[in-house]
């Protein structure tokens, strides 16, 4: 039996290492998505054609996906609350519901929205707007899928009341993915 080194428990930053690590992941993601969205805004403001191309995106699908992500974020934070209360099975249930939200989001995007747009002739190489659209939405969707996979790994252990702190950590990541979509939605679907 050995004690965990101090670095795995609490850092000089005043919080547990895992939470600090997730905040650093989020910080690095801000630069990735920030660069992408910043570039989009520059082009959107200087090219009128962007508004015409954006008119072809389906606002209602974007809104439904926003509702799905907001609801999954609610489940994620309720899972955190249950984990804090030491109720692993309940936390796991909320994690599965959050993952279900992610799967619905990805299902709508990859199973309906993108095939529809491609069938209408709007592909990643159609023009600069659609290149941004598929790149930004694609990178975001990859984060959604990654989050779902992590939740499905964490949930079984949480159900046995093990490593409950991970419920909070994946929740932090998931809320960030939600925040990114909150900005992508008006940029790609509303500002026409």
């Amino acid at each position, binding site marked *: 039996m050995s004690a*965990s080194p101090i670095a795995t428990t609490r850092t000089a930053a005043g919080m547990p290492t895992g939470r600090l690590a997730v905040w650093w992941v989020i910080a690095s993601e801000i630069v990735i998505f920030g660069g992408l969205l910043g570039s989009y805004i520059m082009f959107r403001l200087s090219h009128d*054609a962007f508004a015409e191309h954006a008119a072809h995106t389906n606002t209602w699908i974007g809104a439904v996906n926003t509702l799905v992500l907001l609801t999954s974020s609610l489940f994620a934070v309720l899972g955190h609350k249950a984990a804090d209360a030491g109720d692993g099975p309940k936390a796991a249930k909320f994690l599965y519901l959050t993952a279900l939200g992610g799967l619905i989001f990805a299902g709508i995007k990859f199973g309906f929205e993108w095939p529809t747009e491609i069938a209408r002739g709007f592909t990643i190489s159609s023009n600069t707007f659609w290149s941004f659209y598929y790149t930004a939405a694609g990178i975001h969707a990859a984060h959604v899928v990654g989050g779902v996979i992590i939740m499905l790994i964490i949930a079984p252990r949480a159900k046995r009341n093990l490593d409950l702190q991970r419920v*909070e950590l994946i929740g932090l990541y998931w809320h960030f993915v939600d925040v990114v979509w909150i900005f992508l939605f008006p940029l790609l679907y*509303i500002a026409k």
Partner: protein
Amino acid sequence: MSLHDHAPVEPGYEEHTHHGNYVKIWAILVVLLFVSVAGPFFGHPVVTLITAFGIAIVKAYLVAKNFMHINVAPRYVAYLIGTMLMFMLLFFAGASPDVMKSTGTNWMKPAWVAAHAEAVAHPAAAHGTHHE
């Protein structure tokens, strides 16, 4: 085998977050979503701008404060996130003149300048012409 293999949480996580009324926050977020979708129906660009991006900022704030609990995180986190947002602004300030302007000091975009000249010479014909 670690000392903490069977502990519900790792050391350091014992201090629990204060949990508010999350369903109420979610309901507010959903109402804001409906407002942002309804904005363009008014047909006014300024209204759309406010309902789309103003509300996006409010929604992001609500999620960060109430779901991510950024307001009770150590100040380190606020500095970290603030620094990254400043990097974003720096990138935008540095790159936007090259992207958004047609001419600058010792450089120009010939296609943009030609399109502008065409628009000035033949306003009707150039209507609907866009840079891309």
